[in-house]
């Protein structure tokens, strides 16, 4: 009933660009959340026990006792003594050939992987009972700045998505108002013929939903392609840290559903605008 001349309207392109950017922001948020979760899973259950003893013999004995005690704990999934040779290689750049000296008080180290939901404090207490001077490094603590940064990125991405959706709604409101102005004469005639506000709003809704859907398909397809390419390149990097950025099945479902939400948002914004504007007329 409204003039459909004009073919692919500017609104369609705006919608495509908005959705493209929204999907990228959403993917960033979902990816960083995945990464933060993966980091959390990997590091939350890991710790390293350092046993410092002057005498190599008593240090090795203490390490053996501690290792045996740790392996008996149900909270411990795996406990492994770090190989002396590996430690030596790690320290060699700093200590030079002296690192091979058996009298050098290099601490014995035990890597511990905890079972899921394990009582970390209980494990620490068990180690301290055997060796009160031992030092226990929780890996989670080392990575907490990284984890915090990833959380910040996730929240930033969420804020971007919300801003993009708000901007989209604003664009729809402006387009609907402009449409009302353009079609004022037709709408007045329709009102005089007994048309209700909702009937008029439905015309605009349908039109804006169509624009949003076409724009959504274009912008969504482009964004999903970009994300697929980025995902493939990320996977090819083989990085343990960046690997967490990969999107899961649930994330892809969210991204695919987002355009539908986008069209719904545009439709509702158009309806609210038109009905609100018409209410001010007779």
């Amino acid at each position: 009933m409204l003039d459909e001349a004009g073919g692919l309207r500017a609104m369609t392109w705006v919608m495509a660009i908005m959705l493209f950017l929204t999907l990228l922001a959403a993917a960033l948020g979902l990816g960083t959340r995945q990464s933060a979760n993966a980091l959390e899973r990997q590091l939350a259950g890991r710790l390293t026990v350092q046993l410092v003893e002057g005498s190599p013999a008593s240090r090795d004995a203490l390490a053996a006792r501690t290792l045996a005690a740790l392996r008996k704990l149900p909270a411990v999934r795996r406990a492994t003594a770090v190989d002396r040779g590996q430690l030596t290689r790690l320290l060699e750049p700093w200590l030079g050939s002296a690192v091979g000296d058996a009298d050098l008080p290099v601490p014995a180290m035990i890597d511990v992987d905890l079972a899921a939901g394990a009582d970390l404090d209980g494990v620490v207490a068990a180690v301290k009972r055997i060796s009160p001077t031992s030092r226990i490094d929780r890996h989670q603590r080392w990575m907490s700045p990284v984890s915090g940064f990833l959380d910040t990125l996730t929240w930033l991405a969420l804020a971007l998505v919300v801003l993009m959706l708000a901007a989209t709604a604003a664009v729809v409101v402006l387009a609907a108002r402009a449409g009302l102005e353009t079609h004022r004469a037709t709408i007045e005639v329709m009102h005089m013929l007994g048309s209700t506000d909702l009937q008029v709003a439905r015309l605009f809704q349908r039109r804006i939903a169509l624009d949003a859907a076409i724009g959504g398909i274009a912008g969504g397809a482009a964004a999903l392609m970009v994300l697929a390419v980025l995902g493939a390149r990320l996977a090819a990097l083989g990085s343990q840290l960046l690997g967490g950025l990969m999107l899961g099945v649930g994330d892809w479902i969210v991204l695919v559903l987002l355009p539908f939400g986008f069209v719904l948002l545009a439709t509702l914004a158009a309806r609210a605008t038109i009905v609100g504007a018409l209410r001010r007329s007779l």
Partner: protein
Amino acid sequence: MANIVQFENVGLRYGTGQETLSDISFTLGSGAFYFLTGASGAGKTSLLKLLYLAQRPSRGIIRLFGEDAVTMPRNRLPGFRRRIGVVFQDFRLVPHLSAWDNIALPLRVAGVPEDDVEQPVREMLAWVGLAERAAARPATLSGGEQQRVAIARAVIGRPEVLVADEPTGNVDPDMADRLIHLFESLNKLGTTVVVATHDLQLLSQVQGAQMMRLDKGRLADPTGVLRYPPTARGHA
């Protein structure tokens, strides 16, 4: 004869200016034919706007189909507007719709199923002599043809009241005669017709029609006594 429209001491003021209409009181009987006359600027169009609910009065009482139209909530107006057919002075055809779609508009607005739209539209086009011009857009129609499309659109929903604002203003005398006959035939089917015109020649063409004359926003015959009683009409 039942009264279908009742105005009591109605006044209309646009903004803060002087009243365009003052102390308008009259009643319209169901099934009668009325001419509303007066010089340009007398307030004919403003009065018609009140009648077809495009405007609310600044004061007074308007009763339409037995209900108070002044305080009527907005959401009830569409239902009442569907009972009134309007032929606008400037036609107000929707420019991007064909003659067919313009005429079908009231039925579509009323939610008539598409299958039930075709036959009445075809009949209307034949009635106004535009069957061959169904696909034409308003811009390609002559003034008279546009006028007839506007009339067909106004009457297709079988309104109880037909309001026409200077319907013969843009057409030659022959076409004016034909249009008046169209209104008369509709009136004979029971529709109350109100035609605003400054062409006094038209008045003599409709037997039994009544006249209301506006002068500077006031009814020249404020008592509402009209020249011809509506009972003079055969169908009344």
